[in-house]
């Protein structure tokens, strides 16, 4: 495929804002205008942004819970198997299955399972590692990790129209609107 023959394809249109408040307001208006396929970029976490973009809640907590349950069960099972089945040893006349002694290790493996699920799940749900992303084609985007706030409406959105979306974004009083090459 040669790039010269495909000038029309775009990843999307990106508007640049100076404040987090302006970004949240822009996201809200874009959603009201019917846009759904969009993303916002900010150097700081903005709590209101999730709602403004209409993002659904992350599945990460469920993954972490599952990881914890698996880790805890495996930890307990390991101790039960080794101390009550495979190599039973009389310690101070206590029963082989001395469950109070198993709890600290079970707790630790629960935390381990949950932490691993959180770490791996976070990467997977964010589709990381991602060596290439089109938004970096916009030179101004370098300031997204510094002091500027960006809203990108992607071309996959059914309502996306190169001219009209650009006009809509310009109406939100941004610092500038850029086309994002794919």
């Amino acid at each position, binding site marked *: 495929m040669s790039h010269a023959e495909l000038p029309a394809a775009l990843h999307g249109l990106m508007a640049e804002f100076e404040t987090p408040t302006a970004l949240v307001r822009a996201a809200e208006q874009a959603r009201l205008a019917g846009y759904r396929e969009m993303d916002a970029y900010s150097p700081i976490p903005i*709590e*209101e942004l999730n709602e403004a973009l209409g993002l659904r809640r992350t599945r990460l*907590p469920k993954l972490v*819970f599952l990881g914890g349950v698996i880790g805890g069960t495996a930890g307990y099972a390991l101790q039960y198997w080794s101390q009550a089945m495979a190599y039973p040893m009389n310690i*101070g006349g206590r029963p082989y299955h*001395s469950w*109070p*002694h198993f*709890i*600290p290790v079970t707790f630790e493996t629960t935390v381990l399972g949950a932490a691993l699920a959180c770490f791996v799940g976070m990467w997977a749900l964010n589709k990381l590692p991602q060596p290439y992303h089109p938004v970096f084609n916009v030179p101004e985007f370098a300031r997204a990790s510094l002091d500027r706030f960006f809203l990108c409406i992607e071309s996959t959105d059914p309502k996306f129209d190169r001219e009209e979306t650009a006009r809509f974004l310009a109406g939100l009083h941004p610092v500038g609107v850029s086309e994002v090459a794919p």
Partner: protein
Amino acid sequence: MTAQTHDGAHLAAPRDIDGLRSRALIAGVVGLVGCGLGFVFDRDHFFRSWLIAYLLVLGIALGSMALLMIQHLSGGAWGVFRRVFEASSRTLPLLALMFLPIVLGMGTLYSWTHAEHVAADAILQHKAPYLNVPFFLIRALIYFAGWIGIAWTMSRWSRRQDEGDMSVNKRLQYLAGGGLVFYALASTFAGIDWIMSINPHWFSTLFGFIMVAGHGLSALSFTIVVSTFLSRRAPMENILKPSHFHDLGKLSLAFVMLWAYFNFSQYMLVYAANLAEEIPYFITRISHGWQYVALFLVVFQFIVPFLLLLSRDLKRMPHRLIWVSFALLAVRYIDLFLLVSPEFASTGANLHMVTGAHESHFYVHWLDLAAPLAVGGLWLWMFFTQLAQRPLVAFADPYLREAMESTGGH
């Protein structure tokens, strides 16, 4: 802020509080009549039941005072609950008064108060320099003087803050720092004096931590219940946001885990060591019917609230969270019941004072309903009286603007 905000008049407590106040007073008086009958006809049970009920409300007041001090040190969004904490901690003078029946019942509650028991027991002789009547009373005096002193000073400075005196802000923080140290030490020793010494042979170094975790859990649950009530009425309906309840819910979850962590650690260490002075405490509580109470606590003071409070949605919905908090308060009472009651026979006699019989079978006495009604009713009456005295928001708090932002900033 508008000029109106500065006098706090529009932040006055809702009228309904008067109704609650008189109802609490009626309940307290009815319970008190029951307790009076108990005092005459069943004195041993009266002192035991009174102690348990007393420990529950004392935990709410002290826990609230501790959370208030932590709030002064940390700042942040949960400053909107300051007035509830302050009102709880201002009930401490009444609690000092309600301690008197325990002083009166020392001979029933604590075997080490009897010279003939001490004379016959080498361990009690060894502990006599600490466990004796005058020193017990002096310590109680020190605890109450310190607690009331801290609560009173913080309340006074808080009023000065309302009046616009910003010089108290820094002083409140210093007092909170030192006050927390005093609170933790005094609560630990009070736990040893008033609960642990019922079984004077037993000891546990984790006991103070268990006390403090219990105080925190009681205070948070109570604050959630009261704040939910307030959040449905003016003036708080527009001020308390889901995110504020979210914060208290998260803290409740932390204290549920803390409570379980300390109790389990104590249990496991005693189980592992299997020592003659320590293990009877748990053997008593896992036999003769008490084991079901213990199991109930494991399920309903840890597993169920832990799983429920994991949910973000639940913590952000006051009308659901309030039921978890109500239940936790009830379970806190059962927890204290299990700390105290198995050391007494169903006749009400302290097992460590009767020769021969050393077993307690599960029982509940009618005074275990009358005493919480009396103590709880009178305390709630005092609490609502105190709550109505000040604007419901500490509007001059420098952190408050942040706390009242649309999402309740963090």
